[in-house]
């Protein structure tokens, strides 16, 4: 193949807001739910591209992969796991990294935590960062005991 100018290289429209189709069977959660966090499976664990589900259809879903988009998400305050179970928890502060956590110990409907590793000691992908929802939002959230808190998360999207 020679190094030549391609005639059909542009696929998406211009603009940094990116809503894109994803095959449901290629998602970490193959039965996705609108408004929930999404992660697309990857050959290298911890590198999954993440976003927020906007629309679920038959076999494909539309995910918002826009970098820096802020959505409200439920976040578990688990910090570490030991022998497959949650071991330590902590407060969630503004600016803390938030991970997509597929651990079986996560509460139903909750996909995000503050743990960089899952229950099997495998790397969780970085989903985004805890941010203020509005000027009157308050941090820290949670404490040294297990809790799940709704918070604004600035997603990394395709800006991994």
């Amino acid at each position, binding site marked *: *193949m*020679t*190094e*030549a*100018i*391609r*005639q*059909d*290289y*542009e*696929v*998406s429209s*211009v*603009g*940094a*807001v*990116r809503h*894109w*189709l*994803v*095959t449901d069977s*290629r998602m970490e959660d193959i039965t996705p739910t609108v408004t929930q966090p999404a992660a*697309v*499976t*990857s*050959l*290298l664990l911890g*590198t*999954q*591209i993440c976003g927020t589900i906007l629309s679920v259809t038959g076999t*494909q879903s539309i995910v918002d*992969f*826009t*970098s*820096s988009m802020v959505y409200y998400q439920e976040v578990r305050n688990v910090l570490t796991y030991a022998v497959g179970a949650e071991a330590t928890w902590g407060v969630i502060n503004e600016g803390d990294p938030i991970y997509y956590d597929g651990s079986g110990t996560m509460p139903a409907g909750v996909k995000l935590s503050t743990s960089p590793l899952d229950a099997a000691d495998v790397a969780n992908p970085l989903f985004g960062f805890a941010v203020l929802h509005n000027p009157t939002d308050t941090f820290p959230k949670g404490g040294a005991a297990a809790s799940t808190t709704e918070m604004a998360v600035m997603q*990394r*999207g*395709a*800006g*991994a």
Partner: protein
Amino acid sequence: MTEAIRQDYEVSSEGAVRHWSVTNARMEDATPTASLPAAMLSILPGTQLCGTLLVVMATQSIVDFTCSMVYNHEVINTLTYNGGVANTWGAINEGDPIYYDRSATMPAGVNLSTSPADQAAGANALFGYAVLATPTDVYPKGGITTSTHDVAVMQRGAGA
């Protein structure tokens, strides 16, 4: 210098679409071709800023560094190198990370692979992720033998 508010900190205009001039000599491929992937040289291999070439001029080129922009690119399915040559190959799946690979063993005109390390065991820069080009696009692409495929890649751009 004291830690003070700067009066001249904003360089680019607002908006997340970013087309920017780059010195050709500061690119991994100093003889760039419009529509192909680009990577700037970096002090630290693996951290190169990547994008897609829009316009090539005599000494500078315009590169689209927009995070989450999707372009069709040629991707070789190399997974690992050994002794300076491609060693293992695998299917490219939707969601897999795609790297800018400078290895001399890459086919002419192909700059992207699925290998996180190049033939010299240096880190490859993450370029983006394999995504659907259209709702009828089909994955996986390729298999356990070497092959190169036209893949829609959602680029990381400046969202590193």
